[in-house]
Protein backbone atom coordinates (compact mmCIF):
# COMPACT_ATOMS: atom_id res chain seq x y z
CA UNK A 1 0.00 0.00 0.00
CA UNK A 2 2.94 2.31 0.71
CA UNK A 3 3.93 2.51 -2.96
CA UNK A 4 0.37 2.64 -4.28
CA UNK A 5 -0.82 5.43 -6.51
CA UNK A 6 -4.36 6.62 -6.98
CA UNK A 7 -6.19 7.69 -10.11
CA UNK A 8 -9.24 9.75 -9.30
CA UNK A 9 -11.74 10.30 -12.13
CA UNK A 10 -11.48 13.94 -13.16
CA UNK A 11 -15.24 14.50 -13.12
CA UNK A 12 -15.39 13.31 -9.51
CA UNK A 13 -12.41 15.39 -8.56
CA UNK A 14 -13.77 18.47 -10.27
CA UNK A 15 -16.93 18.41 -8.18
CA UNK A 16 -14.90 18.55 -4.99
CA UNK A 17 -12.48 21.12 -6.35
CA UNK A 18 -15.40 23.42 -7.17
CA UNK A 19 -16.66 23.25 -3.63
CA UNK A 20 -13.26 23.84 -2.05
CA UNK A 21 -13.30 20.44 -0.30
CA UNK A 22 -12.33 17.13 -1.80
CA UNK A 23 -14.01 14.37 0.18
CA UNK A 24 -14.49 10.72 -0.79
CA UNK A 25 -15.40 7.60 1.11
CA UNK A 26 -12.64 5.19 1.97
CA UNK A 27 -14.31 2.56 -0.24
CA UNK A 28 -14.18 4.91 -3.25
CA UNK A 29 -10.52 5.66 -2.66
CA UNK A 30 -9.76 1.94 -2.42
CA UNK A 31 -11.42 1.40 -5.80
CA UNK A 32 -9.10 3.92 -7.40
CA UNK A 33 -5.89 2.57 -5.91
CA UNK A 34 -3.32 1.10 -8.26
CA UNK A 35 -2.66 -1.94 -6.06
CA UNK A 36 -4.55 -5.23 -6.15
CA UNK A 37 -8.17 -4.99 -4.99
CA UNK A 38 -8.34 -3.93 -1.39
CA UNK A 39 -10.57 -6.19 0.69
CA UNK A 40 -13.79 -4.59 1.93
CA UNK A 41 -13.32 -2.65 5.13
CA UNK A 42 -15.68 -1.92 7.97
CA UNK A 43 -14.65 1.72 7.47
CA UNK A 44 -15.67 1.78 3.82
CA UNK A 45 -18.29 4.46 4.39
CA UNK A 46 -15.96 6.73 6.36
CA UNK A 47 -15.30 10.08 4.69
CA UNK A 48 -11.72 11.01 3.88
CA UNK A 49 -10.84 14.60 3.02
CA UNK A 50 -7.89 14.94 0.68
CA UNK A 51 -5.50 17.85 1.27
CA UNK A 52 -6.20 20.65 -1.21
CA UNK A 53 -2.61 21.76 -0.94
CA UNK A 54 -1.57 18.51 -2.62
CA UNK A 55 -4.55 18.02 -4.91
CA UNK A 56 -5.02 21.56 -6.27
CA UNK A 57 -1.64 21.88 -8.08
CA UNK A 58 -2.17 18.45 -9.69
CA UNK A 59 -5.69 19.37 -10.70
CA UNK A 60 -4.61 22.70 -12.18
CA UNK A 61 -1.94 20.91 -14.21
CA UNK A 62 -4.59 18.87 -16.05
CA UNK A 63 -5.03 20.38 -19.54
CA UNK A 64 -8.55 21.65 -20.01
CA UNK A 65 -10.40 23.16 -22.90
CA UNK A 66 -10.42 26.92 -22.42
CA UNK A 67 -13.80 28.47 -23.06
CA UNK A 68 -13.64 31.94 -24.51
CA UNK A 69 -15.41 34.25 -22.11
CA UNK A 70 -16.42 37.84 -22.14
CA UNK A 71 -14.13 39.95 -19.99
CA UNK A 72 -15.36 42.96 -18.04
CA UNK A 73 -13.79 46.10 -19.39
CA UNK A 74 -13.90 49.78 -18.56
CA UNK A 75 -13.71 52.69 -20.95
CA UNK A 76 -10.39 54.51 -20.81
CA UNK A 77 -12.31 57.75 -20.32
CA UNK A 78 -13.32 56.70 -16.82
CA UNK A 79 -10.84 58.22 -14.39
CA UNK A 80 -8.75 56.33 -11.83
CA UNK A 81 -9.95 57.97 -8.63
CA UNK A 82 -7.46 56.20 -6.39
CA UNK A 83 -4.64 55.49 -8.79
CA UNK A 84 -2.06 57.34 -6.73
CA UNK A 85 -2.78 55.14 -3.74
CA UNK A 86 -2.38 51.80 -5.47
CA UNK A 87 0.15 49.42 -4.00
CA UNK A 88 0.43 46.08 -5.78
CA UNK A 89 1.28 42.95 -3.84
CA UNK A 90 5.01 42.66 -3.40
CA UNK A 91 6.60 39.25 -3.65
CA UNK A 92 7.26 37.89 -0.21
CA UNK A 93 10.99 37.20 0.15
CA UNK A 94 10.53 34.20 2.38
CA UNK A 95 7.37 32.19 2.86
CA UNK A 96 5.58 33.07 6.04
CA UNK A 97 5.30 30.28 8.56
CA UNK A 98 2.13 28.21 8.60
CA UNK A 99 -0.39 29.70 11.02
CA UNK A 100 -0.36 27.89 14.33
CA UNK A 101 -3.40 25.71 15.04
CA UNK A 102 -5.83 27.18 17.54
CA UNK A 103 -4.98 26.29 21.08
CA UNK A 104 -8.40 26.35 22.65
CA UNK A 105 -11.54 24.52 21.47
CA UNK A 106 -13.25 27.77 20.60
CA UNK A 107 -13.96 29.45 17.28
CA UNK A 108 -10.63 31.21 17.41
CA UNK A 109 -10.17 33.52 14.45
CA UNK A 110 -6.77 33.65 12.74
CA UNK A 111 -5.74 36.82 14.51
CA UNK A 112 -2.09 37.64 14.93
CA UNK A 113 -0.57 35.71 17.75
CA UNK A 114 0.10 37.95 20.70
CA UNK A 115 3.75 38.75 20.46
CA UNK A 116 5.25 39.24 23.85
CA UNK A 117 8.57 39.81 25.47
CA UNK A 118 8.86 36.45 27.16
CA UNK A 119 10.80 37.56 30.19
CA UNK A 120 8.25 40.25 31.13
CA UNK A 121 5.20 38.08 30.63
CA UNK A 122 6.85 35.10 32.28
CA UNK A 123 7.77 37.26 35.22
CA UNK A 124 4.22 38.60 35.65
CA UNK A 125 2.58 35.21 35.26
CA UNK A 126 4.98 33.48 37.60
CA UNK A 127 6.92 31.41 35.05
CA UNK A 128 10.09 33.43 34.41
CA UNK A 129 11.73 30.69 32.33
CA UNK A 130 8.80 30.35 29.92
CA UNK A 131 9.45 32.05 26.60
CA UNK A 132 6.50 31.18 24.37
CA UNK A 133 2.94 31.96 25.38
CA UNK A 134 -0.20 31.00 23.55
CA UNK A 135 -3.39 33.05 24.05
CA UNK A 136 -4.92 30.20 26.05
CA UNK A 137 -1.88 30.07 28.33
CA UNK A 138 -1.99 33.82 28.89
CA UNK A 139 -5.67 33.58 29.83
CA UNK A 140 -4.95 30.69 32.19
CA UNK A 141 -2.06 32.64 33.71
CA UNK A 142 -4.32 35.62 34.36
CA UNK A 143 -7.01 33.37 35.84
CA UNK A 144 -4.45 32.18 38.39
CA UNK A 145 -3.82 35.74 39.59
CA UNK A 146 -5.40 36.81 42.89
CA UNK A 147 -8.85 38.40 42.67
CA UNK A 148 -9.50 37.22 39.09
CA UNK A 149 -12.74 35.43 38.24
CA UNK A 150 -12.54 35.44 34.46
CA UNK A 151 -10.39 36.62 31.56
CA UNK A 152 -10.63 36.76 27.81
CA UNK A 153 -8.68 37.89 24.80
CA UNK A 154 -10.59 39.10 21.76
CA UNK A 155 -9.60 40.54 18.42
CA UNK A 156 -10.44 44.17 17.72
CA UNK A 157 -13.14 42.80 15.43
CA UNK A 158 -14.89 41.37 18.46
CA UNK A 159 -14.05 37.74 17.82
CA UNK A 160 -12.97 35.55 20.66
CA UNK A 161 -9.36 34.38 20.71
CA UNK A 162 -9.36 32.63 24.07
CA UNK A 163 -11.24 33.13 27.29
CA UNK A 164 -12.95 31.80 30.35
CA UNK A 165 -15.67 33.56 32.31
CA UNK A 166 -17.89 32.33 35.13
CA UNK A 167 -21.50 31.45 34.27
CA UNK A 168 -23.80 33.02 33.19
CA UNK A 169 -21.36 35.20 31.26
CA UNK A 170 -20.78 34.18 27.65
CA UNK A 171 -17.25 34.73 26.46
CA UNK A 172 -18.18 35.08 22.78
CA UNK A 173 -20.86 37.65 23.54
CA UNK A 174 -18.48 39.60 25.74
CA UNK A 175 -15.80 39.46 23.06
CA UNK A 176 -18.26 40.82 20.51
CA UNK A 177 -19.12 43.81 22.67
CA UNK A 178 -15.63 44.84 23.76
CA UNK A 179 -14.75 46.88 20.65
CA UNK A 180 -18.09 48.66 20.82
CA UNK A 181 -17.51 49.59 24.44
CA UNK A 182 -14.13 50.98 23.52
CA UNK A 183 -15.37 52.82 20.47
CA UNK A 184 -18.37 54.38 22.17
CA UNK A 185 -16.57 55.54 25.29
CA UNK A 186 -13.40 56.35 23.36
CA UNK A 187 -15.38 58.77 21.18
CA UNK A 188 -16.58 60.51 24.32
CA UNK A 189 -13.12 60.77 25.90
CA UNK A 190 -11.84 62.31 22.68
CA UNK A 191 -14.81 64.65 22.53
CA UNK A 192 -14.20 66.01 26.03
CA UNK A 193 -10.47 66.13 25.31
CA UNK A 194 -9.51 63.48 27.83
CA UNK A 195 -7.38 61.82 25.19
CA UNK A 196 -7.19 58.33 23.77
CA UNK A 197 -8.92 55.64 25.76
CA UNK A 198 -6.49 52.92 26.83
CA UNK A 199 -8.41 51.02 29.51
CA UNK A 200 -11.91 50.80 30.94
CA UNK A 201 -12.64 49.97 34.57
CA UNK A 202 -16.27 49.03 35.18
CA UNK A 203 -18.02 47.93 38.35
CA UNK A 204 -21.23 45.94 37.91
CA UNK A 205 -23.28 43.39 39.81
CA UNK A 206 -20.84 40.75 38.58
CA UNK A 207 -17.92 42.59 40.17
CA UNK A 208 -15.13 44.76 38.81
CA UNK A 209 -14.18 44.40 35.19
CA UNK A 210 -11.08 45.87 33.57
CA UNK A 211 -10.77 46.07 29.79
CA UNK A 212 -7.50 46.94 28.13
CA UNK A 213 -6.64 47.75 24.56
CA UNK A 214 -3.65 45.57 23.69
CA UNK A 215 -2.62 46.38 20.13
CA UNK A 216 -4.74 44.24 17.86
CA UNK A 217 -6.35 42.58 20.83
CA UNK A 218 -8.63 43.46 23.72
CA UNK A 219 -8.00 41.97 27.13
CA UNK A 220 -10.93 41.81 29.55
CA UNK A 221 -10.54 40.64 33.13
CA UNK A 222 -13.38 40.12 35.59
CA UNK A 223 -12.73 40.36 39.32
CA UNK A 224 -14.13 38.21 42.10
CA UNK A 225 -16.97 39.95 43.98
CA UNK A 226 -15.63 42.30 46.63
CA UNK A 227 -12.00 41.81 45.60
CA UNK A 228 -9.58 44.12 43.87
CA UNK A 229 -8.11 43.29 40.49
CA UNK A 230 -4.31 43.28 40.13
CA UNK A 231 -4.55 46.23 37.75
CA UNK A 232 -0.87 47.21 37.52
CA UNK A 233 0.07 43.67 36.50
CA UNK A 234 -2.81 43.49 34.02
CA UNK A 235 -1.78 46.80 32.50
CA UNK A 236 1.72 45.44 32.02
CA UNK A 237 0.35 42.32 30.33
CA UNK A 238 -1.77 44.46 28.03
CA UNK A 239 1.30 46.59 27.30
CA UNK A 240 3.30 43.52 26.39
CA UNK A 241 0.55 42.14 24.16
CA UNK A 242 0.48 45.46 22.33
CA UNK A 243 4.16 45.20 21.43
CA UNK A 244 4.90 44.57 17.75
CA UNK A 245 5.90 41.01 16.97
CA UNK A 246 9.51 40.25 17.76
Amino acid at each position, binding site marked *: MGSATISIPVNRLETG*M*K*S*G*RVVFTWAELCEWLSVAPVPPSANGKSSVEL*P*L*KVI*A*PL*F*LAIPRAVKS*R*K*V*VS*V*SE*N*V*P*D*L*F*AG*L*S*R*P*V*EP*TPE*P*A*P*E*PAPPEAPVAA*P*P*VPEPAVAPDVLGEILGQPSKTDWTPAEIVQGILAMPGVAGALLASN*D*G*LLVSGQMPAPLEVE*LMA*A*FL*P*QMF*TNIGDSTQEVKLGTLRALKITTGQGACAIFKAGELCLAVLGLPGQTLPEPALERIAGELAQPKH
Partner: protein
Amino acid sequence: MAIINQATKELQLKIVYYGPGKGGKTTNLEQVHGNVQNVKEKGKLVSLATSSDRTLFFDFLPIEAMAIKGYKAKFQLYTVPGQVIYNTTRQLVLRGVDGIVFVADSQYDKMAENVESFQNLEDNLKTLKLNFAEIPYVLQYNKRDLASAAPVDYLDFLLNNREVQVPSFAAVAYRCEGVFESLNMITRLLLNKFINEGARKAT
Protein backbone atom coordinates in the same frame (compact mmCIF):
# COMPACT_ATOMS: atom_id res chain seq x y z
CA MET B 1 -29.24 51.69 -6.37
CA ALA B 2 -27.27 54.80 -7.30
CA ILE B 3 -28.71 58.04 -5.94
CA ILE B 4 -28.39 60.99 -8.22
CA ASN B 5 -28.89 64.38 -6.65
CA GLN B 6 -29.62 66.73 -9.48
CA ALA B 7 -29.58 69.78 -7.19
CA THR B 8 -26.08 69.23 -5.90
CA LYS B 9 -24.93 67.37 -9.01
CA GLU B 10 -23.85 64.50 -6.82
CA LEU B 11 -23.78 60.80 -7.60
CA GLN B 12 -23.97 58.52 -4.56
CA LEU B 13 -22.94 54.91 -4.95
CA LYS B 14 -22.99 52.05 -2.49
CA ILE B 15 -20.16 49.51 -2.49
CA VAL B 16 -20.34 46.43 -0.27
CA TYR B 17 -17.31 44.41 0.78
CA TYR B 18 -18.51 40.82 0.98
CA GLY B 19 -16.74 37.59 1.85
CA PRO B 20 -16.11 34.97 4.50
CA GLY B 21 -15.48 35.87 8.11
CA LYS B 22 -11.98 37.09 8.97
CA GLY B 23 -11.11 37.36 5.30
CA GLY B 24 -9.99 40.99 5.53
CA LYS B 25 -13.05 43.07 4.68
CA THR B 26 -12.71 45.32 7.69
CA THR B 27 -8.98 45.65 7.08
CA ASN B 28 -9.76 46.88 3.58
CA LEU B 29 -12.00 49.61 4.94
CA GLU B 30 -9.50 50.56 7.60
CA GLN B 31 -6.76 50.86 5.00
CA VAL B 32 -8.93 52.95 2.72
CA HIS B 33 -9.91 55.16 5.61
CA GLY B 34 -6.36 55.47 6.83
CA ASN B 35 -4.80 56.19 3.46
CA VAL B 36 -7.24 58.63 1.96
CA GLN B 37 -5.41 61.72 3.07
CA ASN B 38 -7.91 64.50 2.70
CA VAL B 39 -9.67 64.32 6.06
CA LYS B 40 -12.31 66.88 5.15
CA GLU B 41 -13.46 64.77 2.25
CA LYS B 42 -13.69 61.40 3.89
CA GLY B 43 -16.24 60.25 6.38
CA LYS B 44 -15.61 58.88 9.78
CA LEU B 45 -15.30 55.11 10.11
CA VAL B 46 -18.46 54.18 11.96
CA SER B 47 -19.37 50.89 13.53
CA LEU B 48 -23.06 50.13 13.26
CA ALA B 49 -23.78 47.51 15.85
CA THR B 50 -26.72 45.16 16.09
CA SER B 51 -27.28 43.03 19.18
CA SER B 52 -24.20 40.93 18.74
CA ASP B 53 -22.52 41.64 15.47
CA ARG B 54 -20.97 44.57 13.76
CA THR B 55 -21.04 46.14 10.36
CA LEU B 56 -18.63 48.81 9.40
CA PHE B 57 -19.70 51.72 7.34
CA PHE B 58 -18.24 54.94 6.21
CA ASP B 59 -18.75 57.31 3.37
CA PHE B 60 -16.37 59.74 1.85
CA LEU B 61 -15.77 61.87 -1.15
CA PRO B 62 -12.72 60.89 -3.16
CA ILE B 63 -9.72 63.13 -2.73
CA GLU B 64 -9.89 64.59 -6.17
CA ALA B 65 -13.67 65.05 -5.95
CA MET B 66 -13.69 63.98 -9.54
CA ALA B 67 -16.35 65.35 -11.77
CA ILE B 68 -17.98 62.80 -14.04
CA LYS B 69 -20.12 64.46 -16.65
CA GLY B 70 -20.52 67.38 -14.26
CA TYR B 71 -21.29 65.18 -11.25
CA LYS B 72 -19.31 64.59 -8.10
CA ALA B 73 -19.01 60.95 -7.14
CA LYS B 74 -19.61 60.04 -3.53
CA PHE B 75 -19.05 56.47 -2.42
CA GLN B 76 -20.44 54.67 0.60
CA LEU B 77 -18.38 51.67 1.59
CA TYR B 78 -19.89 48.93 3.73
CA THR B 79 -18.70 45.62 5.03
CA VAL B 80 -20.93 42.76 6.02
CA PRO B 81 -20.30 40.46 8.97
CA GLY B 82 -18.77 37.37 7.42
CA GLN B 83 -19.90 34.84 10.00
CA VAL B 84 -22.46 32.48 8.53
CA ILE B 85 -25.13 33.12 11.16
CA TYR B 86 -25.48 36.83 10.42
CA ASN B 87 -27.34 36.45 7.15
CA THR B 88 -30.14 38.86 7.98
CA THR B 89 -27.61 41.61 8.54
CA ARG B 90 -25.92 40.80 5.25
CA GLN B 91 -29.22 41.06 3.42
CA LEU B 92 -29.90 44.43 5.02
CA VAL B 93 -26.50 45.77 4.06
CA LEU B 94 -26.88 44.49 0.50
CA ARG B 95 -30.08 46.46 -0.06
CA GLY B 96 -29.48 49.11 -2.69
CA VAL B 97 -25.98 47.87 -3.46
CA ASP B 98 -24.35 49.28 -6.58
CA GLY B 99 -21.06 47.40 -6.59
CA ILE B 100 -19.38 44.59 -4.71
CA VAL B 101 -15.82 43.79 -3.71
CA PHE B 102 -15.69 40.11 -2.83
CA VAL B 103 -12.78 39.60 -0.44
CA ALA B 104 -11.68 35.97 -0.54
CA ASP B 105 -9.26 34.40 1.91
CA SER B 106 -6.44 32.79 -0.07
CA GLN B 107 -5.64 30.09 2.46
CA TYR B 108 -6.28 26.53 1.35
CA ASP B 109 -8.35 25.74 4.40
CA LYS B 110 -10.66 28.68 3.66
CA MET B 111 -11.62 27.61 0.15
CA ALA B 112 -14.89 25.98 1.16
CA GLU B 113 -15.81 29.12 3.13
CA ASN B 114 -15.04 31.28 0.10
CA VAL B 115 -17.32 29.19 -2.08
CA GLU B 116 -20.02 29.16 0.56
CA SER B 117 -19.84 32.92 0.99
CA PHE B 118 -19.97 33.54 -2.75
CA GLN B 119 -22.98 31.27 -3.03
CA ASN B 120 -24.53 33.11 -0.09
CA LEU B 121 -23.98 36.39 -1.93
CA GLU B 122 -25.77 35.07 -5.00
CA ASP B 123 -28.62 33.73 -2.86
CA ASN B 124 -29.02 36.99 -0.98
CA LEU B 125 -29.06 39.03 -4.17
CA LYS B 126 -31.77 36.73 -5.51
CA THR B 127 -33.76 37.17 -2.30
CA LEU B 128 -33.49 40.93 -2.75
CA LYS B 129 -34.59 40.51 -6.37
CA LEU B 130 -31.30 41.89 -7.61
CA ASN B 131 -29.69 40.50 -10.73
CA PHE B 132 -26.08 39.56 -10.03
CA ALA B 133 -25.25 39.80 -13.71
CA GLU B 134 -26.12 43.49 -13.63
CA ILE B 135 -24.12 44.40 -10.55
CA PRO B 136 -20.47 45.27 -11.13
CA TYR B 137 -18.12 43.36 -8.85
CA VAL B 138 -14.46 42.58 -8.45
CA LEU B 139 -12.67 39.76 -6.67
CA GLN B 140 -9.90 40.37 -4.21
CA TYR B 141 -7.69 37.43 -3.22
CA ASN B 142 -6.42 38.49 0.16
CA LYS B 143 -3.65 37.11 2.38
CA ARG B 144 -1.32 36.38 -0.51
CA ASP B 145 1.64 36.68 1.86
CA LEU B 146 0.77 33.48 3.72
CA ALA B 147 2.60 30.27 2.92
CA SER B 148 -0.74 28.46 3.01
CA ALA B 149 -2.14 30.58 0.16
CA ALA B 150 -3.60 28.61 -2.75
CA PRO B 151 -2.58 29.55 -6.31
CA VAL B 152 -4.46 32.45 -7.88
CA ASP B 153 -5.43 30.07 -10.71
CA TYR B 154 -7.32 27.94 -8.25
CA LEU B 155 -9.11 30.94 -6.75
CA ASP B 156 -10.07 31.98 -10.26
CA PHE B 157 -11.34 28.46 -10.92
CA LEU B 158 -13.46 28.61 -7.78
CA LEU B 159 -14.78 32.15 -7.88
CA ASN B 160 -14.19 33.71 -11.27
CA ASN B 161 -15.94 31.05 -13.31
CA ARG B 162 -19.13 32.78 -14.38
CA GLU B 163 -20.06 33.65 -17.91
CA VAL B 164 -18.27 36.96 -17.71
CA GLN B 165 -14.75 37.12 -16.32
CA VAL B 166 -14.44 39.89 -13.75
CA PRO B 167 -11.30 41.72 -12.61
CA SER B 168 -9.44 40.04 -9.77
CA PHE B 169 -6.67 41.37 -7.57
CA ALA B 170 -4.09 39.77 -5.31
CA ALA B 171 -3.93 41.55 -1.97
CA VAL B 172 -2.26 41.73 1.39
CA ALA B 173 -4.82 44.04 2.92
CA TYR B 174 -3.04 44.75 6.18
CA ARG B 175 -0.12 46.13 4.16
CA CYS B 176 -2.58 48.01 1.95
CA GLU B 177 -1.40 45.99 -1.04
CA GLY B 178 -4.17 45.43 -3.55
CA VAL B 179 -6.66 47.44 -1.52
CA PHE B 180 -6.81 50.51 -3.72
CA GLU B 181 -6.45 48.45 -6.90
CA SER B 182 -9.72 46.72 -5.98
CA LEU B 183 -11.43 49.93 -4.93
CA ASN B 184 -10.21 51.78 -7.98
CA MET B 185 -11.56 49.11 -10.31
CA ILE B 186 -14.97 48.84 -8.68
CA THR B 187 -15.39 52.63 -8.72
CA ARG B 188 -14.36 52.69 -12.37
CA LEU B 189 -16.84 49.93 -13.20
CA LEU B 190 -19.58 51.87 -11.44
CA LEU B 191 -18.76 55.14 -13.14
CA ASN B 192 -18.52 53.33 -16.45
CA LYS B 193 -22.00 51.92 -15.88
CA PHE B 194 -23.31 55.36 -14.91
CA ILE B 195 -21.87 56.93 -18.05
CA ASN B 196 -23.18 54.15 -20.29
CA GLU B 197 -26.66 54.21 -18.78
CA GLY B 198 -26.71 57.98 -19.09
CA ALA B 199 -25.75 57.63 -22.71
CA ARG B 200 -28.50 55.04 -23.25
CA LYS B 201 -31.09 57.32 -21.66
CA ALA B 202 -29.94 60.24 -23.79
CA THR B 203 -30.41 58.30 -27.04
